């Protein structure tokens, strides 16, 4: 069972929901959390995991043997990213543009190109008080989060309830994080920005054919447009979290709802049951 927690807009409370849900479920079920927000991973702040394993994620960057090279220019011609250039009797490699696709080395007629690893991030795995924990971290200055997300997702333990903390937005990294989920929880806030980005997130989930439900955070501020949209689109609003100074204070200190206000554990268990019902219902209707 894989539940991804996404939002479109940043700062709506994805990580708070993902970590609170994980902690609420862990006494009854084996739970794994995957932090796929590799640009700004924050779940560790709330879960304080003990990291037992750190593995680098690398791209394969070309190295040209100038003895073997005859400067024919084939590598530059096949590189879709302008990451290698041949200038008279020299070959220049631009590692920041390189996607590590291997086209240059594979297609070099002289076999003059080998490759070396260039680290772009790390995968950190461990335990957080009974939870299995995996996060990716993109190195500062690097541009490509997707290969790191792919590595995080390879560590999915599908016999557990897997909760995926998704980056904000609707582009590639989000799709890579959400794809393969049984359910996508969209966390939003009752404001025009929240609604605008929720609509985009719903389109993304539908594109991926993942069933979704909504969590509205900071209820009590803003307006009712988000709820009206959900009603119109027939998307269930599964949980509302009030605008509350105590919740904001706990969040600011890196404390989940489940730890800081234990009465929320039952609420998140309930949320999980509702998600299970929706997923079961969908699976039954797919079989029919």
């Amino acid at each position, binding site marked *: 069972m894989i539940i991804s927690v996404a939002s479109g807009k940043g700062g709506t409370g994805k990580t708070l929901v993902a970590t609170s849900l994980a902690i609420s479920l862990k006494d009854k079920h084996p739970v794994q959390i995957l932090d796929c927000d590799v640009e700004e991973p924050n779940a560790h702040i709330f879960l304080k995991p003990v990291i037992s394993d750190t593995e680098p994620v690398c791209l394969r960057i070309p190295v040209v043997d100038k003895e073997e090279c005859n400067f024919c220019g084939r590598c530059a011609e096949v590189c879709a990213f302008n990451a290698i250039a041949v200038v008279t009797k020299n070959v220049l490699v631009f590692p920041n543009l390189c996607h590590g696709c291997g086209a240059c080395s594979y297609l070099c007629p002289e076999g003059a190109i080998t490759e070396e690893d260039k680290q772009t991030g790390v995968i950190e795995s461990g335990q957080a008080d009974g939870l299995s924990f995996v996060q990716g971290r993109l190195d500062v200055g690097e541009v490509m989060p*997707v290969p790191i997300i792919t590595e995080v997702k390879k560590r999915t333990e599908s016999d557990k309830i897997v909760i995926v903390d998704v980056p904000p937005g609707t582009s*590639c990294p989000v799709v*890579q994080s959400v794809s393969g989920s049984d359910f996508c929880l969209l966390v939003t806030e009752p404001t025009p920005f929240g609604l605008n980005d929720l609509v985009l997130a719903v389109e993304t989930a539908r594109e991926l054919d993942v069933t979704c439900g909504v969590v509205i955070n900071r209820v009590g501020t803003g307006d009712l447009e988000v709820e009206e949209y959900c009603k119109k689109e027939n998307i269930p609003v599964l949980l509302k979290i009030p605008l509350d100074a105590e919740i904001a204070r706990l969040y*600011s200190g890196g404390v989940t709802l489940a730890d800081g206000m234990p009465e929320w554990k039952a609420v998140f268990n309930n949320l999980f049951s509702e998600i299970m019902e929706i997923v079961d219902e969908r699976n039954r209707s797919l079989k029919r």
Partner: protein
Amino acid sequence: MKEIVVLSGKGGTGKTSIVGSFAAIADNKVLADCDVDAADLHLILSPQVLEENEFWSGKLAEIDEFICTRCGLCGDLCRPGAIDEFRVNAVLCEGCGLCYRVCPVGAIDMQERLAGHWYVSETRYGKLVHARLGIAQENSGKLVAQVRQQAKGIAEESGADYIITDGPPGIGCPVISSLSGAGLALLVTEPTLSGIHDLERVIGVCDHFGVPTLVCINKHDINEENTRHIEKYCFQNEIGVAARIPYDNAVTEAMIQGKPVVEYSQNAVSHRIQELWDKVIESVTG
């Protein structure tokens, strides 16, 4: 002409509300929304679109199943793992074209991708360049570069003094694309542990690309201890803290009215944002 980009690392710290207010305060500027993935600035600036342009970028491999002999060479060589069962996963395909070049029967073609749209609009505060990346597309960095280039062109043509850019969250491709070569990065943070963690990473990116930074602590009163921590961190790293803005529900109320908060009310938030803009000008012209 000075380019000011507003970033945060963490999403939802108030970048767009602050940029919307700068739009109302600043004279003689061009606005750019570089959060092409989930743009929101248009919701408070109500732009009239003058120009809509398609954004074609990158390529996507396509396998002709009638020509394909299922030899599997493409899948073996594809490093992003985009070819599964002789079909291309559009999300994972980076458009490198290796499969297209090696296919022994020529069954693979590279298609241009329509990755989104970009717009030049008129607002009551001046020109806005904004964009919409297609759902599930990549190359957001290139679309950001397109928006910036367009904004720069308009600014040069009209003799604008500033380009004010609303940046995306995170630290990856679109952020780097928004940032490189800018005159100042204004980093909007909040006094939460997540906000601090993400601020430190985005400062790292700004340093890496040699862009000067200024920090603004939004909603400073939700956790004064964390606010002091941020101020201390900035002091130790010689980064100016240009403003502390209190939490105020007027920011949300203004958003619902479709207005910048400085136009909606004359409260402490509005005063702090006004002072913040003065400091930004001082920093880029000083």
